[in-house]
């Protein structure tokens, strides 16, 4: 499964300008939290992060962890500066009006799993 499949299946809106081919972006697993301190400590590298947090700090966190993409839920829209920062850093920023639970459910059905301490996904 690649990021382009996910975008198509979940009908996600791409907020950042993406030049790279997203079908070569293969997320390792999924992670969800709205507290950035938890994300920094707990999100596996190359994972997809699902959150309703739209503050600009999400870009630094996504860069730090080399995340595959950030899906912002519940229709929350980051400000222009955040989107510009995403473009500069090459962070894939996606948006949906769905709540986090629905996104996580669909991704799980598509086969994207959580990080297992015994079998880390990255």
């Amino acid at each position, binding site marked *: 499964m690649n990021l382009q499949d996910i975008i198509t299946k979940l009908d996600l809106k791409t907020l950042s300008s993406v030049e790279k081919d997203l079908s070569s972006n293969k997320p390792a697993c999924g992670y969800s939290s*709205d*507290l*950035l*301190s938890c*994300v*920094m400590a707990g999100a596996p590298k190359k994972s997809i992060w699902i959150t309703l*947090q*739209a*503050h*600009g*700090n999400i870009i*630094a*966190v996504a860069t730090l962890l080399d995340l595959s993409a950030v899906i912002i839920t519940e229709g929350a829209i980051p*400000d222009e*500066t955040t989107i510009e920062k995403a473009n500069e850093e090459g962070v894939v920023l996606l948006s949906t009006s769905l709540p986090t639970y629905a996104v996580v459910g669909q991704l799980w059905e598509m086969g994207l799993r959580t990080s297992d301490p015994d079998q880390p996904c990255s």
Partner: protein
Amino acid sequence: MIPPLIVETALELGISLIAITDHNSSANIRSVQKAAENTSLVVLPGMELQTREDIHSLCLFDTLEQIEALQKIVDATLPKIQNQPDHFGEQFVVDETGDFIRTESKLLITSSSLSLDQAFKIVQDLNGLFIPAHINRKTFGLIESLGFIPPDIPFPAVEISRHMTVKQATSQFPSIGKIPVIQNGDVHRLNEFLGTLYLIMENPTVSEIRLAFENANERSMEVRPVQ
């Protein structure tokens, strides 16, 4: 906490300046100011605003007009939910003697839809001080919600709770950088006053407090150890 007891307790502890910073509300400020009339206690209008990131920030002003302007914006950005006193407690508005005036029916213990950045700008444009509150706390503290202090917002100061020292804060949270760190009691009960923040300034005004935070123009600030 009724106004005369707030004033009495602060004065007993030798505190000369307090701010009333109810959660998303300014309705009780005037009563405390009235209760402090003819005493040496200065009462600044303020608010503990909760932004959409679930972050608490102190908003401090000089005048009631300024806080009323902020209140209008906050009211318009709070969800239209009624308070349920059984779960969240009563929201009383009282007069300067502590007598009941009315109950606030709108739920205050929730987030405004303003972002931290938007709220900072609004308070700054109203010539107020915007200070992220108890940034070290796991609930409603900036560090927990946002991981680190956003480098692009010029906060005049950040506040820590009584549970750590300034030195511990700057070492544990390097993103504080050169931002001044203050410590207050976050007083919800009369026995919670700290009175350990010393501001050396000409007058108890927002612009003077700002200078004291910056240690500028012979103004200065000191956070003494919590006893």
